[in-house]
């Protein structure tokens, strides 16, 4: 049945082959070495490394701060996208371009800039200090840095979906008697929810792996403001390669499970939307 297998989109075999090779070389093989390197440790040694109280505390900081940062980015990213799509104002294109800056800026520069601003005698920190809020060298500072680097993800995933949502749909809701918040919760939000979830997942994933901007603002106090990537670097500097990969492995597995869950949620949401 040769000509039954012909399709109007030829090249499936070839393109899939290249995709698999490419992904293997760039992603799969490097990640596999994390497993092989970790395997140098015995079972109990592995367990002792990854459940060390200092390491456990760093998981909490990394995943906790990343989660909060991704949440904040979801809320404000939606707002930024909304403003950029729905309103016309002078400088709109400039703001639009600025959204991408966290992508381009070396993260260390961002970290240093944020630290300077938020230290107790900095521009912003000076106002927060009397209120009893300290940002730099605390958990809040880490979150601020992670919010900064994660912002573009939500904006850029939600923007095209909002673009697609005609103003007429909102006008229709209003003409049917819906209040503004009803229009938002029942019409706008369900429509952008899948994109919002994607943006959240990307910002979250990016935050988990972030190193450069955080190390400056966090102060790196053991048990308090140490993030997982910092611990990994520390172990590497001590030539504890197996220990470093063991911690990395835990990160990898947890991140993968989280992203998988988010993807499943998204799949459900998209099926419900059925565009």
């Amino acid at each position, binding site marked *: 049945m040769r000509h039954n297998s012909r399709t109007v989109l030829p090249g499936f075999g070839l393109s899939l082959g290249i995709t698999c090779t490419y992904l293997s070389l760039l992603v799969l093989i490097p990640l596999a070495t994390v497993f092989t390197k970790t395997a140098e440790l015995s079972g109990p040694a592995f367990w002792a490394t990854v459940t060390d109280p200092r390491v456990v505390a760093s998981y909490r900081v990394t995943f906790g701060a990343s989660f909060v940062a991704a949440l904040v980015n979801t809320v404000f990213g939606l707002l930024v996208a909304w403003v950029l799509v729905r309103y016309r104002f002078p400088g709109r294109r400039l703001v639009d371009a600025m959204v991408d800056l966290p992508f381009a800026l070396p993260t260390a520069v961002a970290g240093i800039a944020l630290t300077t601003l938020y230290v107790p005698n900095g521009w912003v920190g000076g106002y927060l200090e009397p209120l009893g809020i300290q940002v730099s060298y605390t958990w809040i500072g880490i979150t601020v840095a992670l919010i900064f680097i994660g912002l573009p993800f939500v904006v850029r995933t939600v923007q095209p979906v909002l673009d697609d949502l005609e103003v007429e749909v909102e006008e229709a809701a*209003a003409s049917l008697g819906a209040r503004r918040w009803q229009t938002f919760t029942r019409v706008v939000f369900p429509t952008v929810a899948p994109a919002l979830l994607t943006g959240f997942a990307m910002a979250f994933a990016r935050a988990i792996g972030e190193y450069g901007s955080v190390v400056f603002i966090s102060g790196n106090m053991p048990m308090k403001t140490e993030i997982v990537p910092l611990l990994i670097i520390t172990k590497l500097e001590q030539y504890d390669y197996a220990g470093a990969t063991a911690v990395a492995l835990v990160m990898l597995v947890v991140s993968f499970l989280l992203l998988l869950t988010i993807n499943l949620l998204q799949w459900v949401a998209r099926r419900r939307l059925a565009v």
Partner: protein
Amino acid sequence: MSIEVRNLRKAFGTFVALDDVNLDVPGGELVALLGPSGSGKTTLLRIIAGLEPADQGLIRFEGEDTTDRPVRERQVGFVFQHYALFRHMSVFENIAFGLRVRPRPVRPSDEEIRDTVMGLLRLVQLEALGQRRPSELSGGQRQRVALARALAVKPKVLLLDEPFGALDAKVRKELRRWLRRLHEEVHVTSVFVTHDQEEALEVSDRVVIMNEGRVEQSGTPEEVYERPATPFVYGFLGDVNLFHGRIDRGRVKVGASELDAPEWAEARDQAGVAYVRTYDVELTPSSSGRSSIETIVRHIRAFGPVIRLELDRVEDGGSVEAHLPRAQYDKLGLVKGQRVFVSPTSVRVFAGPADGSAARIA
């Protein structure tokens, strides 16, 4: 629920969309706002709905001033050209939306909502499709869902913005007959915007013809078609031939020919344009009097019950279009290049030189 529009003005920047518009829609009627694009008809509809604020003027529903009332309190049903359905909801939930967002004290129970929606689905003949998504429906079906959704809130007024504009010709025709029948069933005061003259004349009780932000004429389809008030209306409704000439003592001189224009008995040698519908002409092989205009047959489109002829005037090369019943055409036995005389049987003369370049406006 009657609608009154008084002295409405609306400008977008320097563009005047509506210029002192007055309009009366008697309760229970189906009214068409007809005009070319940019004539202000959609703006007028959106202001009636409350989707757009007016710069000046009043809107009254049943005598009550609603000018400053927000759209969600106006109790209007609005149907958009591109349906504007909620794509994440089923057809059923789309129609139920207006009932579900009501404040708790006046919100119907789930059972009542179900009954209402099922009733509306029957009305728009989509009973079996309640659980589908809008994306799974055809254009015509989507527009019927949009209509049912608008009717669910029992609007005082139904407003439709080019409701059939995005549909193909055949579906359009079906749907507009269906809309006419539906209107006879539910009898809610309705205003719909269209740029299609045939649609407006066929569906509505009353046609309002708009041009450049003003109402040119309003009346029943027969009135506006048979007695156009302005040259614009004459040209916009149906095919018409224009003859430029001089009006003098009840006659219009067009080249060597003279057409009767008794309503201009007082006029003394002034510029004028005679409007003649393409079917208000008689063709004869030889001159039949002063009003005959000599022409040469340029093109014949001989299909269907009406034969369309394009003729060139011998005098100045101007073009004349004539529509003849087939029997008459067969009797004449016309061929391309033949000489034939055209005598207008019904002429409407407006003073002033219309745009001289347009010999015929369709």
